[in-house]
């Protein structure tokens, strides 16, 4: 079955004019989900509810009640986010929660008329970068089922590139929207910290958690974000931007094709009249230890009760990381929280005089499932550390960051670049990303 990879911005006027039926769109998405069960993109498929929602959308539009670009458009929700009447499994065998109300973000999407086709698979409790530790099977990359789709929002990214939905909601604590977007060749936005409410979302680390939109294009991501936030986004293609590339630390160890893609993007932007300069983010090399001393104890706090009663229900790797967090001393956790201020100021300083930072999203293409380490330009590195290396700083600093496709490796694997904007300028960042997207 050929996937419909049209964008939301292409479909919206067709849905509004009734040239395209939301019911037919939804049925087609459901069929694509059912055609590729081996990818494990979804945990719960809401077939009957989605078709009823699509029917309602169709009737409402016919009666002149068009709500906007998401009206009648099938979307998916990461199964860490509450959807009323559906278990929130968090990708785990630990007993799920059974929300009676939607998370506020879901309410906003429903109010806009979006049709929810299902809950997507993820790395268990969002505590991983490969989506392979899940009680519902690993999320498999459509290009090669032996490869990871990235994580933790892996199911969401696969659902997008396979045409199982037109927009997705993911979460991002160290890179979990941007990493699978990079691995799969889609777009994912981590807004600024606190910009979108994380109520109704199972927490991993409340200091670092973000929720955000994922789609196949920047403009579709902007449409999703506008609904999720209640904002508007405009791109001005006439504006010339200044980009800062933080080469030290972020470009030290990259797959050669990732380095080449960054260079190609840089040259393309310069040819288009934008300025691209090298900048430095002070103390960036401290990011991994700061991240670890925040995420581990905060995750352990949330899971303390269930670790006592359901320890055997966790994936072994997730359980061990949660147990590690219980040993971190309070003084070291506080050290990390204070260093968060240092890093935030360092990113602000690097952005001084720039409209956005430009760097790769992942140093490697999608890794092989089950591998503990990966070769990055001649150096063996743990997979988890490699995949977090370029994204996690901006969870600590809270700056908005977006991943978008930047070509492929020599053997066809997606490569991605990441743009980081200033606090309070997420809408502007989306406009900049639209200018960079090719």
């Amino acid at each position, binding site marked *: 079955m050929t996937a419909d990879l049209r964008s939301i911005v292409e479909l919206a006027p067709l849905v509004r004019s009734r040239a395209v039926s939301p019911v037919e769109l939804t049925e087609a998405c459901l069929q694509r989900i059912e055609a590729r069960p081996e990818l494990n993109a979804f945990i719960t498929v809401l077939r009957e509810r989605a078709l009823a929602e699509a029917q309602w959308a169709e009737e409402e539009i016919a009666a002149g009640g068009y709500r906007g670009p998401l009206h009648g458009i099938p979307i998916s929700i990461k199964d860490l986010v509450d959807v009323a009447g559906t278990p929130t499994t968090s990708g785990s065998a630990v007993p799920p929660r059974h929300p009676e109300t939607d998370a506020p973000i879901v309410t906003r999407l429903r109010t806009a008329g979006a049709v929810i086709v299902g809950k997507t698979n993820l790395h268990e409790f969002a505590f991983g970068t490969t989506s392979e530790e899940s009680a519902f099977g690993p999320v498999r990359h459509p290009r090669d089922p032996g490869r990871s789709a990235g994580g933790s929002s892996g199911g969401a990214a696969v659902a997008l590139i396979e045409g199982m939905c037109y927009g997705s909601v993911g979460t991002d604590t160290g890179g979990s929207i941007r990493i699978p977007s990079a691995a799969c060749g889609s777009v994912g936005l981590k807004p600024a910290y606190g910009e979108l409410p994380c109520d109704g979302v199972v927490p991993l680390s409340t200091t670092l958690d973000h929720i955000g939109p994922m789609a196949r294009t920047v403009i579709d991501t902007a449409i999703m974000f506008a609904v999720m936030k209640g904002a508007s986004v405009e791109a001005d293609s006439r504006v010339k931007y200044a980009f800062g590339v933080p080469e030290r630390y972020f470009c030290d160890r990259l797959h050669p094709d990732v380095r080449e893609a960054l260079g190609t993007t840089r040259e393309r932007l310069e040819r288009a009249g934008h300025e691209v300069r090298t900048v430095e983010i002070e103390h960036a090399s401290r990011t*991994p230890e700061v991240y670890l001393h925040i995420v581990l104890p905060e995750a352990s706090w949330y899971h303390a009760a269930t670790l006592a009663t359901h320890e055997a229900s966790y994936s072994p790797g997730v359980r061990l990381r949660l147990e590690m967090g219980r*040993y*971190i001393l309070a003084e070291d956790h506080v050290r*990390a929280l*204070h260093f968060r201020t240092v890093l935030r100021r360092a990113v602000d300083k690097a952005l001084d005089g720039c409209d956005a930072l430009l760097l790769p999203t992942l140093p490697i293409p999608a890794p092989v499932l089950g591998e503990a380490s990966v070769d990055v330009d001649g150096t063996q590195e743990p997979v988890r550390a490699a995949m977090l290396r370029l994204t996690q700083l901006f969870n600590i600093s809270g700056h908005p960051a977006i991943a978008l496709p930047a070509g492929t490796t020599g053997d066809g694997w997606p490569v991605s670049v990441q743009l980081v904007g200033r606090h309070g300028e997420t809408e502007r960042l989306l406009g900049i990303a639209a200018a960079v997207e090719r």
Partner: protein
Amino acid sequence: MTIEAWLKAACEDAERRGLAELKPLLETLARSTAALREADRLIDRARL
């Protein structure tokens, strides 16, 4: 608490709880904590 004392206590506790597989992860964590403490020591707190 020194990192050495912390690591010793953490590994003994992990062993007692039947989580011997945690020990190599705790050793990695100890190195990370040492790096964090060193970074903290070098930061001018007056600027925070």
